C-alpha cells in the first residue's frame, strides 16, 4: 500500500511499486490533469510538486510517493476558485492548446512559492524544464511577472465590441485547472489497450508467423490485428484519389515506423510484449534515402503507379524568364537544403473507439473531424454516417494531426471486438510514424533592373515527400505560387516536384513548403540589394506587392496587401537595430575568434512573406449553424477544431458581434460529426477567414430571422432572458416567447441561423495561371542576434514582427500565434532536424526551450480584407514563414557566413564562418 498526501488529502493506493507516478495519478487515482508528453524527462508536461519541489512525475516510481506530499494542477484551485497564477495565465493568453500548461503552472508554482517576485532570468531557469510548442513562451513569462499584481480579469466587452477585444480564451479556464480532456483523458475504464508493432526497417518485406505461441505466453493478449482484418479499404490518404498508406502493412513496408500489426489486450500485457517477441520475419532491403537516390536511374519503385517515384509536379510560368534574366542589371542565384522537421506537439496521438450497434463512435485527436470520419468509414467499409468522430481537445497540431494516425487502428479493433479500445502513442512512436515537414532542395536565380525592381525569378524545388502521399500534392501546388515571395514581378518560372523516398511521409506542417522556399527568396533579395547598393529593407519595399499588382499566377490583388505598410512600420526599428549592431561590432573589432577569444558579432536580418489563406484553387467551404433553444440558450454548432490557436474564441467573438449579443451569452458544441457541420480542416490558416465568415453569415441569418419575427428594424437590439427574447427597436420592445415556438431539427433549437462560406478561387491552368486564393496574409520580421564566431552558436536578442492580419479579431490571440510561429521558426532555422532512428525523442530532437525565444515586439497592421469576417484574414502560418529567413539573414549580416543546410546547427554555422573568413564570398 502506497500512502501519501495528494493535494492536501491523505490517499492510499495499491499499485506496482515501479509504476510511474504519472500512471498512478492518471490511471489509478483518476487525476488526468497531469499530462504525459515523453516519459523521459524531456518535456516537463508531467511536472508536479513533491515535498515542495518540482519533479517530473513520469520518472518517479510509485513506491517513492509513499510518505510524501504531492501537489498536482488539480491542487492549485482546491476550492474551485482559480489561483492568482492561473488567473494571470488566463489574462495573458499564456495557455494555447493547454497540454503543457499543467506542467508550466506547477513549475511556476514551485518558483513563486520560494520567490514571489522572480526576475526574468529566475523565471526562465525555473521553467527551463517544461517545453511548450504553441506559445513561444513569452506570454508565460509575462504572466508570471504579473502574478503578484493579481489584477482582475478584463471587463467583458460591450455588445458589438467583442471583435477586436483582448478577451481570454472562452475555453481558457479548463486548460488551467486540469479539467480539459485531451485524447488520452477520455477513454472508459473498461477499455482495452492497443499498441501497434512498427517496422524497424525503412524498406523491407515480411511474413507473419504463427501467433498462437504469443497468445499462449500472454493470456492478456486479446487479439493481434493484421492487414487481413481491415474490413474495408486497407489504405488511407488525404486526397480522395490517393489512398496509398496501408492501415497495417501487407507484406511490405516503405518507411521505418510503419504499422505492421496491432496488439490489443489489457494494459499490462500490451506494455510487456516486446516487438521482437511478435513473429515477424523481416527481409530488409536497401532503402531510398533522399530525393537524389529516389530519382536516380534504375531506382527501385515505391508505388507501382509512379514508376519514376515522382508523386506530382507543380508549375507556375509567366513571361520569358531566360530573356528577362539575361537582360537584368543584376542577378543572384543560390541553393539551400532543409531537413525533416517534426511537429513535436507535446500531446502524443491518443483516443478511443467503441462500437455502438452498427456504428463506431470515436473520441480522438483530429484537425479535421468530418474528413477523418469519412476516412475511417472507408477503412471500415461502411457509410460515413455509421462513424461518429468527436474531437477531443488537441494538445498541439500544427498540421501533424491532419493525417490519420491511430484512428483506423482503434476503429478496426473496436469493430471486431465490440469492446472499447484505446490507444496512446509513445513519444518515439509518435515521432517515427507520423508526418513531418518536407525536406526541400530549393534553388533559384533572380534578377533586378538598375532601379532596383525585380524583373524575373526562376525557381525549382524538390520536396522529399517520404513513403506516402499525405499532403505532398499540396506542397507541389502551393510552393510555386509562393516562390516569388511577396513581391511584384512580371516574369516568373517556378517548378516543383514531390518525390517518394523510404522516409517518413511528409505532410502538412505550418506553411506547406512555403517556409522552405522563403529561405531562398529572402536570401536572393539580400544579395540583389547588396549588389545594387540598396538597403535590404528599402529594396524589399520597392518591390513589395501592392493592390493593383499581379501575382505570378496572374491574380491582381484588389484589397488587403499590407506588406508595404509592414515594412514602413519596421523601418525605424531596422535603422535603430542596424546602427546598434554596427556600433557594437565596431567596438569589439573584427576578430575571427582565434585563440579562444569570445568574439561576438552582432547582426540584423529581415524576412518577408506572403501566404494564401485557405486551400490552393480548391473548394474548401465551412458550414456553421447557430441556434436559440426554447430556454434561451444560444449555441454555436462549430465543426472547426481548435488546436490551441484559439478558433473557438475567435468564432464566438464573431458570432456575438454579428448577432449583437454579449459574447459570454454564447455556448458552443465543437467538432462532433453527429452534431456539427463540416467546417473543413484546421489548416491553411483558414479558420478565421473561412469558418469566421460562415459564422458571421449564420449569425446574421439568425439575427435577421429574429428581427423579422419581431417586426423589428435592422438596428433592433436583441436581449435574451431565459425563455423570453426581447428586441428593443427604438422605443418599441417586442417579445418572442421561445417556449411557444416549435423546435426545429435534431438540435431542439427553436430558431436557427445557417452560414456557409467557400472562399472564391479559380483553378490554375497548365502554367499555374488563375486565382489560387481569395486573400493573402503578409508580414515582415526583423531578427537581431549575436554569433559566437569561434563556436558558431547563435544568441537571439530580439524580433520585431509586423503582420498584416486584415483585422485582429482578438489581438492577444494573434500575438500568441506570432510568438508561437516565431518559436517554431527559430527551431526550423537553428536546431530542428529529424533523422529516422536517431532523433526519435525530445532530447536528441531539439525544439526551442523558454531560454531560446527572445523578446518579440509585435506591430499589427490591419489592412481590411472585405472577403473576411469583419475584415480578418489568417495568422497561423504567416507567423512562422519569415522567421527563419530573418535569422539566417542576420547570421550572414553578422559574419558573412551563408549556411546552406538548414538547420543552422552550431557546427554548420562554424563551418560557414570559416568558409566566409577564407575569403570565398558566397
Amino acid at each position, binding site marked *: 500500500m502506497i500512502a501519501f498526501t495528494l493535494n492536501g488529502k491523505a490517499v492510499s493506493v495499491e499499485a506496482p*511499486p515501479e509504476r510511474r507516478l504519472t500512471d498512478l495519478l492518471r490511471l489509478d487515482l483518476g487525476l488526468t490533469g497531469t499530462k504525459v508528453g515523453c516519459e523521459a524527462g524531456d518535456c516537463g508536461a508531467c511536472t508536479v510538486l513533491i515535498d515542495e519541489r518540482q519533479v517530473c512525475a513520469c520518472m518517479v516510481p510509485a513506491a517513492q510517493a509513499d510518505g510524501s506530499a504531492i501537489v498536482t494542477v488539480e491542487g492549485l484551485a482546491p476550492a474551485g476558485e482559480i489561483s492568482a497564477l492561473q488567473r494571470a495565465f488566463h489574462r495573458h493568453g499564456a495557455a494555447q492548446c493547454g497540454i503543457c500548461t499543467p506542467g508550466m503552472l506547477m513549475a511556476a508554482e514551485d518558483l513563486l512559492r520560494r520567490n514571489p517576485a522572480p526576475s526574468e532570468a529566475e523565471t526562465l531557469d525555473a521553467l527551463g524544464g517544461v517545453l511548450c510548442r504553441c506559445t513561444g513562451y513569452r506570454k508565460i513569462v509575462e504572466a508570471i511577472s504579473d502574478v503578484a499584481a493579481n489584477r482582475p480579469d478584463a471587463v467583458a466587452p460591450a455588445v458589438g465590441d467583442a471583435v477586436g477585444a483582448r478577451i481570454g480564451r472562452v475555453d481558457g479556464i479548463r486548460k488551467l485547472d486540469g479539467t480539459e480532456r485531451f485524447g488520452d483523458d477520455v477513454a472508459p475504464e473498461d477499455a482495452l489497450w492497443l499498441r501497434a508493432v512498427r517496422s524497424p526497417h525503412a524498406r523491407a518485406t515480411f511474413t507473419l508467423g504463427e501467433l498462437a505461441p504469443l497468445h499462449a505466453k500472454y493470456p492478456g493478449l486479446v487479439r493481434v490485428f493484421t492487414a487481413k482484418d481491415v474490413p474495408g479499404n486497407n489504405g488511407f490518404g488525404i486526397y480522395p484519389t490517393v489512398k496509398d498508406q496501408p492501415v497495417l502493412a501487407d507484406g511490405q513496408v516503405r518507411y521505418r515506423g510503419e504499422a505492421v500489426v496491432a496488439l490489443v489486450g489489457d494494459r499490462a500485457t500490451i506494455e510487456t510484449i516486446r516487438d521482437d517477441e511478435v513473429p515477424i520475419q523481416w527481409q530488409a532491403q536497401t532503402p531510398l534515402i533522399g530525393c537524389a537516390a529516389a530519382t536516380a536511374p534504375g531506382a527501385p519503385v515505391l508505388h507501382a503507379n509512379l514508376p519514376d517515384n515522382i508523386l506530382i509536379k507543380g508549375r507556375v510560368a509567366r513571361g520569358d524568364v531566360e530573356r528577362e534574366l539575361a537582360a537584368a542589371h543584376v542577378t543572384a542565384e543560390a541553393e539551400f537544403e532543409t531537413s525533416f522537421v517534426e511537429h513535436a506537439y507535446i500531446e502524443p496521438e491518443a483516443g478511443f473507439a467503441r462500437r455502438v450497434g452498427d456504428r463506431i463512435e470515436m473520441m480522438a485527436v483530429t484537425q479535421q473531424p468530418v474528413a477523418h470520419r469519412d476516412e475511417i468509414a472507408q477503412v471500415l467499409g461502411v457509410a460515413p454516417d455509421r462513424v461518429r468522430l468527436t474531437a477531443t481537445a488537441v494538445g498541439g497540431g500544427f498540421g501533424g494531426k491532419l493525417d490519420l494516425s491511430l484512428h483506423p487502428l482503434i476503429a478496426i479493433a473496436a469493430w471486431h471486438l465490440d469492446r472499447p479500445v484505446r490507444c496512446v502513442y509513445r513519444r518515439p512512436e509518435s515521432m517515427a510514424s507520423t508526418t513531418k515537414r518536407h525536406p526541400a532542395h530549393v534553388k533559384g536565380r533572380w534578377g533586378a533592373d538598375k532601379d532596383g525592381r525585380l524583373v524575373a525569378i526562376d525557381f525549382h524545388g524538390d520536396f522529399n515527400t517520404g513513403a506516402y502521399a499525405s499532403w505532398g500534392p499540396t506542397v507541389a501546388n502551393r510552393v510555386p505560387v509562393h516562390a516569388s515571395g511577396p513581391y511584384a514581378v512580371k516574369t516568373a518560372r517556378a517548378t516543383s516536384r514531390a518525390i517518394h523516398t523510404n522516409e517518413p511521409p511528409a505532410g502538412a506542417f505550418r506553411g506547406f513548403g512555403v517556409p522552405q522556399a522563403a529561405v531562398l527568396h529572402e536570401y536572393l533579395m539580400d544579395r540583389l540589394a547588396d549588389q545594387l547598393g540598396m538597403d535590404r529593407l528599402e529594396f524589399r519595399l520597392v518591390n513589395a506587392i501592392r493592390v493593383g499588382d499581379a501575382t505570378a499566377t496572374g491574380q491582381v490583388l484588389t484589397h488587403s496587401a499590407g506588406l508595404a505598410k509592414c515594412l514602413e512600420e519596421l523601418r525605424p526599428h531596422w535603422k535603430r537595430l542596424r546602427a546598434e549592431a554596427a556600433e557594437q561590432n565596431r567596438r569589439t573589432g573584427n576578430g575571427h575568434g582565434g585563440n579562444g577569444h569570445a568574439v561576438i558579432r552582432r547582426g540584423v536580418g529581415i524576412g518577408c512573406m506572403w501566404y494564401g489563406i485557405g486551400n490552393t484553387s480548391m473548394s474548401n467551404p465551412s458550414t456553421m449553424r447557430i441556434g436559440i433553444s426554447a430556454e434561451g440558450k444560444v449555441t454555436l454548432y462549430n465543426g472547426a477544431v481548435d488546436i490551441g490557436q484559439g478558433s473557438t474564441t475567435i468564432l464566438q467573438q464573431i458570432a456575438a458581434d454579428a448577432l449583437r449579443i454579449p459574447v459570454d451569452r454564447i455556448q458552443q458544441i465543437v467538432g462532433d460529426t453527429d452534431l456539427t457541420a463540416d467546417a473543413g480542416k484546421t489548416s491553411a490558416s483558414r479558420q478565421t477567414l473561412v469558418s469566421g465568415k460562415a459564422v458571421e453569415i449564420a449569425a446574421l441569418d439568425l439575427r435577421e430571422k429574429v428581427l423579422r419575427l419581431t417586426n423589428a428594424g435592422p438596428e433592433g437590439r436583441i436581449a435574451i432572458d431565459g425563455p423570453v427574447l426581447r428586441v428593443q427597436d427604438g422605443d418599441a420592445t417586442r417579445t418572442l416567447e421561445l417556449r411557444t415556438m416549435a423546435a426545429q431539427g435534431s438540435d431542439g433549437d427553436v430558431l436557427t441561423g445557417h452560414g456557409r462560406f467557400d472562399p472564391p478561387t479559380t483553378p490554375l491552368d497548365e502554367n499555374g495561371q488563375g486565382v489560387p486564393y481569395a486573400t493573402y496574409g503578409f508580414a515582415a520580421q526583423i531578427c537581431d542576434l549575436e554569433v559566437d564566431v569561434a563556436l558558431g552558436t547563435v544568441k537571439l536578442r530580439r524580433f520585431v514582427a509586423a503582420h498584416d492580419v486584415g483585422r485582429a479579431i482578438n489581438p492577444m490571440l494573434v500575438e500568441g500565434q506570432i510568438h508561437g510561429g516565431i518559436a517554431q521558426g527559430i527551431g526550423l532555422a537553428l536546431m530542428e532536424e529529424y533523422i529516422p532512428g536517431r532523433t526519435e525523442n525530445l532530447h536528441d530532437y531539439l525544439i526551442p526551450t*523558454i531560454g531560446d525565444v527572445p523578446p518579440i515586439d509585435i506591430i499589427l497592421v490591419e489592412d481590411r480584407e472585405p472577403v473576411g469576417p469583419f475584415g480578418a484574414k489568417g495568422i497561423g502560418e504567416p507567423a512562422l514563414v519569415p522567421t527563419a529567413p530573418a535569422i539566417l539573414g542576420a547570421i550572414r549580416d553578422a559574419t558573412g557566413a551563408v549556411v546552406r543546410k538548414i538547420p543552422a546547427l552550431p557546427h554548420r554555422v562554424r563551418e560557414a564562418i570559416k568558409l566566409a573568413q577564407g575569403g570565398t564570398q558566397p
Partner: protein
Amino acid sequence: MGYLRPTSVDEAVGALAASPAGGSGWVVLAGGTDHYPARVGPRAAEDILDISRVAGLRGVAETDSGWRIGALTTWTEVIEADLPPLFDGLKLAAREVGGVQIQNRGTVAGNLCNASPAADGIPPLLSLDAMIELASAKGTRRLKLAEFIQGNRRTARRSDELVTAIHLPRPANAAKGDFLKLGARKYLVISIVMAAGVIERTADRKVAAARIAVGACSAAAQRLSALEQALAGQPLDTNLRALVTEMHLAPLAPIDDVRGSAGYRLDCALTIVRRLVDRLAS
C-alpha cells in the same frame, strides 16, 4: 519480479550479494531520472533495488580530508550546499543536468553510474580529483573517478556493489573551479562539448596545480594532463590561454553524431578550454 526498498547500506549490499531468483540481477534505482527514460515502451519486468531510503547516503559534508557527497545527494542539494569556490564548476554543471525537475530528483552518483559520455557531472568531478566509494558485502573500496568510468556507459562497479559516496580531497592551496558547456539550445540540452577545471593558486599568484577535463569528446570524459603540466607554475596574470594548444587535446577522440562533427568538436574543445583557462585565471 521484486522491488526492494532497503533502509541501510548493509541491507542493500546484502541484497546485491544474492542475485534475485530467476532474474538477471538487481537494477539499482535512486532518483529514477536515467532509469525511466531508458524504459520508454514495452519491456519485461525487472528486479529493482530502490535505494532512495537507504540511511546515511544523502547530503554534502565537510570531512577531515575534504568533502563527502553522499550517493543519494541530488543536484539541487549540490547547488544549494554551502561550498567554497573550488566547487563553482560542479555547481554550474549541476544547473545543466536536465531541468530543475531532474536536478531535484537525479543524484550525483547516478550521473556517474549511468556513465554517459556527455554526463554533465563527470568533467567537474574529474577536475575535483573525485574518489568513488563502493560498498559490498565484502567491504568497501575507493576508486579514482577516472578508473571508475571505463567507457561509454561502462563503470567498474561490480554487480554486488553499491556506490555510497563521492570523496573530494581538500586542495593544498586556494582553488577555484569552473565549467563551460556548448549546446544547441539554452536548457535541457546534451553537451556537444564541455570543459571543467580547477586551478589552485599560490600566494604569489602562480598556478600551483591545474586540473582540466573535457566531456562529450570521447567515450569517457578525459583529463588533459599535458595541459595541466604546462599550466603548473605559470603566473596567473600572464596570458594563460595562449598556452593551450591542439596538442593538449590528444586524449580526446570525438565522434560525428547528430549534435556535431568530430572535427567541430575538437575545434570547439580548443576554444572552450582556452576560455575556461581564461576564466579560471581571472
